[in-house]
């Protein structure tokens, strides 16, 4: 015991920790830099970069670290690169860690909800903004535990640097054992030192998890979270974590949350309105649009002209191509033939007809102004309701913080959610989330708003509040909208024109009341009958 304590506190051993930590730090930081590059290459749209990264991963993940250490130390000098032992060990460890860290980063990035990425693109975020503001903050949270593991494994792997004469803890322990024959006291001591170090890493990991925890609420829970038993019991589950924290989802009061309507509630004469709309400029012009996935035809030559201020209801059975058409209009998907113009401009192509890079495309999207609302809301999970609206205004449109906040507050008021401005999406009901999503989409004053089955994912009692918000946008703002929906009554009330899509083609088109009450096409008749039967 005395010997054990003697070696535990021996400066010679403690100094060995220094080298151990140096190699670990070099390996981790270098691995992080290399890992970011590798992950970027793997996620890149350029095939050559991705395959290079794959080859690197195969080599460095598939060979033992001890060989890489010896290689960095003894083989690199043959080509004139003679690194000091610590740097050689750090280099080998970094090269070895890189593929693992890259995988962590990649899975973290891919783990971020695809819908949020789509929503970010639709809002006109460039790939860089999307990565920095939406993907990275959420990916990092999910990667902390994996990174903790990686750090512990790097620390232990640093002991292999003993084979290339790095005076780290393990090498010093064996040298001491050789000189004194006190084999066991020495190795128990160095084992305990390693345990101290890994425990410290675990502590840092827990702290970071706490720090990045979105739900960090009451002070008591903050402290409790640091305790291992708290984690072991799984008390992070919603039900148990409540305590004195506010209930996670406040009741949704539905339509009653909305402010009183501003405009006249009686409908304008439809015929008169239709006459006025006909004279308006064209907002969206889709011509002979064709698209297929592999050999499956999704859009088989769609022509559609939407005038400014017009509200189009896009009806049709599932798989008829409604969503695809909307995504094509916003350039979230590519098509095979035909053209789409928004505000007279060909989105997605330069003036010379060349396809734009993702960054330029994002800018074009923001300039032309096509807003999009998704079936699954796709709010940014790490941002409050207010930030979901204000953030994109600042990042995409360069609006100042004050103005963006003012605009967000105003829109939240309009959708009846001023009282939930600071709530995270997960603490909002589906109807509330969709109202925030609508506010987010109209915040930059888009020229067209596309709504992709905005109420299909909602519980029946939450549908009305969302429809009411959309109705007011049409009536009060005269916003140009294309809505794909299954809500026939809503379509007949709000839409100027109904477009019925089946098997990728428009089978019936015309004023809402005509098409819905008296369809001519047999496919349309069958579909509308089925829909009405379901409603009844």
């Amino acid at each position: 015991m005395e010997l054990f304590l003697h070696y535990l506190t021996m400066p010679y051993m403690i100094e060995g920790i220094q080298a151990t930590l140096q190699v670990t730090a070099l390996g981790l930081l270098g691995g992080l830099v290399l890992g970011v590059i590798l992950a970027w290459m793997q996620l890149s749209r350029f095939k050559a970069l991705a395959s290079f990264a794959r080859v690197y991963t195969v080599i460095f993940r598939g060979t033992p670290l001890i060989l890489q250490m010896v290689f960095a130390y003894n083989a690199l000098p043959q080509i004139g690169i003679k690194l000091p032992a610590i740097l050689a060990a750090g280099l080998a460890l970094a090269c070895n860690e890189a593929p693992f860290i890259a995988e962590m980063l990649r899975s973290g990035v891919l783990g971020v909800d695809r819908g949020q990425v789509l929503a970010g693109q639709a809002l006109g975020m460039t790939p860089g903004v999307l990565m920095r503001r939406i993907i990275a903050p959420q990916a990092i949270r999910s990667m902390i535990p994996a990174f903790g593991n990686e750090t512990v494994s790097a620390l232990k792997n640093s002991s292999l640097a003993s084979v290339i004469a790095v005076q780290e803890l393990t090498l010093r322990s064996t040298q001491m054992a050789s000189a004194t024959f006190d084999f066991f006291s020495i190795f128990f001591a160095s084992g305990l030192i390693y345990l101290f170090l890994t425990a410290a890493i675990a502590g840092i990991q827990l702290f970071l998890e706490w720090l990045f925890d979105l739900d960090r609420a009451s002070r008591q829970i903050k402290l409790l979270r640091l305790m291992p038993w708290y984690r072991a019991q799984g008390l992070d589950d919603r039900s148990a974590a409540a305590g004195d924290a506010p209930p996670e989802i406040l009741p949704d009061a539905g339509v009653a949350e909305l402010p009183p309507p501003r405009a006249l509630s009686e409908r304008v004469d439809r015929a008169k309105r239709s006459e006025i709309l006909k004279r308006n400029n064209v907002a969206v012009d889709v011509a002979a649009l064709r698209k297929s996935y592999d050999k499956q035809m999704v859009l088989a030559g769609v022509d559609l002209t939407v005038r400014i201020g017009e509200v189009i209801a896009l009806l049709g059975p599932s798989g008829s191509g409604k969503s695809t058409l909307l995504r094509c209009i916003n350039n979230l998907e590519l098509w095979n033939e035909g053209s789409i113009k928004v505000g007279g401009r060909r989105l997605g192509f330069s003036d010379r007809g060349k396809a734009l890079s993702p960054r330029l495309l994002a800018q074009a999207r923001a300039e032309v102004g096509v807003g999009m609302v998704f079936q699954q809301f796709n709010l940014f999970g790490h941002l409050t309701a207010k930030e979901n609206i204000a953030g994109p205004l600042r990042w995409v449109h360069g609006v100042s913080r004050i103005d963006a906040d003012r605009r967000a507050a105003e829109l939240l008021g309009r959708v009846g959610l001023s009282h939930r401005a600071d709530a995270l999406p997960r603490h909002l009901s589906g109807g509330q989330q969709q109202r925030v999503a609508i506010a987010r989409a109209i915040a930059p004053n888009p020229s067209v708003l596309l709504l992709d089955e905005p109420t299909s994912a909602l519980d029946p009692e939450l549908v009305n509040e969302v429809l009411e918000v959309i109705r007011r946008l049409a009536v009060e703002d005269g916003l140009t909208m294309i809505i794909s929906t299954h809500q026939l009554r809503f379509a007949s009330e709000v839409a100027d024109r109904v477009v019925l899509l089946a098997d990728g083609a428009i089978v019936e088109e015309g004023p809402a009341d005509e098409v819905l009450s008296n369809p001519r096409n047999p496919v349309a008749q069958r579909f509308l009958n089925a829909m009405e039967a379901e409603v009844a």
Partner: protein
Amino acid sequence: MVTLSFPRTYKLIHIAALGALLVVGVGAPTIARAAAPAACAELQAKYPDWKGKTLVNAINPHTPGYESIDPKDPNKYVGFDIDLGEQIGECLGFKLTYKAVTFAALLTTLSSGQADIVISDIYATEERAKAADFITYSKVFDGVLVAKGNPKKITGINTSMCGAAAAENTGYVEVPLIQALVGECKKEGKAEPTIQLYDNNANCIQAILAGRADTYVNDVNTVDNAVKAYPDKLEKAIAVTIPYKVGIAVPKDKPAFRDAVKAALTEIYKSGDQLALLKKWNLDPENLIEPGLLMVK
């Protein structure tokens, strides 16, 4: 007295600081030195290239008596080889720092340029001389280490080892000698000896203590030290002579350095300093030989 408690406090702070900080650079061990023979002045005039330089000596510091860390001051390496290297350095006017590597890595460290010289109780064999030039300086006597009572009745590197497990260091010359027994054992209808390869002496000795290996053949002084450390558990079965000499390894592409080291070693031999060193480290004076060369193309 109050002041007595200060060093301990300081130590704790020191430990904490070291744990927290990442400071590059580990202090090189320093060694006490003996006086250089007079003829060294002439040698320094003849071989001026290394005067005032600091060279790197690659060692495998797991052989107490020849080279190991000093348990009292672990930042120092001590032993016969260490002192001998320092005397050569003093004679030619250079200083030495040390690089501790595994035994098997000694010559690769030298040939990759990570070290300038290897003085680490390494036996000069033809095979090794393909990788480095050797200046020989000592005879080799090996001891056969066995568990107390020599349960397998091992009597040397001979058929008494058939069926036994021998612990050896990776790269040691004893490895092929024991491997050569395979044929003889077969002829006598006995089981083959097995070899367990480890990284250093401590592990080989532990293998016997743990009952994993039956014997460990190495330099007799190392074996004697092991027996001294575990007198109740280990014993030396026998001492054997091995047909090799111990040598200092230098790069093949530096003949002038080789000649300078050999000349300096010869002066140390002639002056009686080498014999004095053997006595200082309790090594058998029988080891002493006049410096020679082992080189192969």
